[in-house]
């Protein structure tokens, strides 16, 4: 494969979505942007992706719902989750669902880059 890895960014906040897409592109990867987990799942693009960066709390399906749906469909694309929520129970559920990384907003860009690189290397 000569094409660079494709990263899906699922985030309902337009400004943050665009910024993360920008960061991903600056790393030399391709990026696709989605404003909800439902839209992303409906498009059936998951299998084409090398990694998914998703917010947890969004209108409709959450990032955790997204990961569970992928697992159920037998899709093992690594999922990095991002959240502004601080509840321990939510973090626990995120980890239990199989997220490779859980980042708390506001996250350091370096932390996201590290997560992304280790997810792609795996």
């Amino acid at each position, binding site marked *: 494969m000569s094409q660079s890895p494709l990263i899906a960014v699922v985030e309902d906040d337009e400004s943050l979505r665009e*910024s993360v897409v920008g960061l991903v592109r600056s790393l030399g990867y391709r990026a696709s942007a989605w404003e909800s987990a439902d839209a992303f799942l409906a498009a059936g693009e998951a299998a084409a992706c090398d990694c998914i960066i998703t917010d947890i709390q969004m209108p409709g399906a959450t990032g955790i719902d997204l990961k569970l749906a992928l697992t159920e469909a037998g899709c093992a694309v690594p999922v990095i989750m991002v959240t502004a929520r601080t509840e321990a129970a939510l973090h626990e559920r995120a980890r239990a669902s199989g997220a490779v990384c859980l980042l708390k907003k506001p996250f350091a860009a370096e932390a996201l880059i590290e997560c992304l690189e280790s997810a792609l290397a795996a």
Partner: protein
Amino acid sequence: MAEDNTADLLDALKRSEHRYRNIFQAMSVAFWELDFFPVGDLLRGVRKQGVEDFGPYFRKNPDFVRQMMRATRIVDVNDRTVALHGGGDKARLMAAGLDAFWPDASLGVYAAAVIAAVTGKPSYATETRLGTLDGGEFDALFTASFPPDTMNKGTLLIGVIDITERVRAQAQLAQLQAEFAHAARISMLGELTASIAHEVNQPLAAIAASAAAGQRWLARDEPDIEEVRTLVARIAKDAARAADTIGRVRDMAMRRAPEPAALSLNGLVEEAMVFLRHEIQGHGTRVVVDLARGLPPVLADRTQLQQVVVNLAVNAVQAMGEGGTLTLSTAPQDGAVRLTVADTGPGIPEDSLPRLFQSFYTTKAGGMGMGLPICRSILESCGGTITAANGEAGAVFTVTMPAAG
């Protein structure tokens, strides 16, 4: 027979006069019996100069108003007047003359009383400030009555009631209401802390990501300036957004005197939805915003009216728990503007409806019972109203406010 009648009449007149004197002396109202006759000469003099409308003339010539006062003779005062204005010394009070008890700021009240008298009004009453012999001032309810029979003789009666305590109590009440409104905003902000943190964190995360991306584009062998330009613009936008959120929170948390301004109710509703975006999302609430176009502005303090909209929306979101639909609509209504906040929650129990706007009445666990009373007092202070009812699906709150003229 005729002489008997005259004696009876005289007797009746004496009794009436005696009764009047008793009332005059015994009332807790300070009474002044004034001889207005010399003022009539002054007014006729002015009229001869071609002045037809006394109002503007009095405003332009405060010295003339003073002159009328000095010409007004004090016929008699009662004990209450001596105590209130004269420090207990009737002789000094009578000698000082009416002029001594009128602060400059209250000259207009005397002028208005004169105008009322000459235009045949039966009486004139207003709240003002009057003076005392020792140079003090107090808040007074001033009443002048011009009964036609005594007016012919040139005498009139002025009643003064000391309302210092009432004015002070009103000021205290207003301050208390302001403090409660402030406390309620702080308590609401506390409830919304997670949402506010989210609203700030979001742009901060975006800024961090954009900055890191910019560094990478610049670090390339051939730096991509176009990419960086886009990123820097995005950073500026996100920084402004974070500052905006902080500014809104600070306005809400600050205690300051209300500053009424012409506001767009639609704009306020939209802002409130931005403010509550996270709260709404956290509850999975569906929001329907139906704003009428071309609404006239309303006159209110921005932060206070924002508090009303946010409060009603938060109540609705919390009443519905998970899910539900929150509908905010605006509409014009006979020179007024109407805002309706409807939810699809359990509604308001019928027996709670009459008490909903009473202080400390709450149906929420951990509620303070101040949100709705404060909404009502905010709205009433700008001539608006708020009502609660049960709609087809849940609770419906209707706010009306007069259009700013």
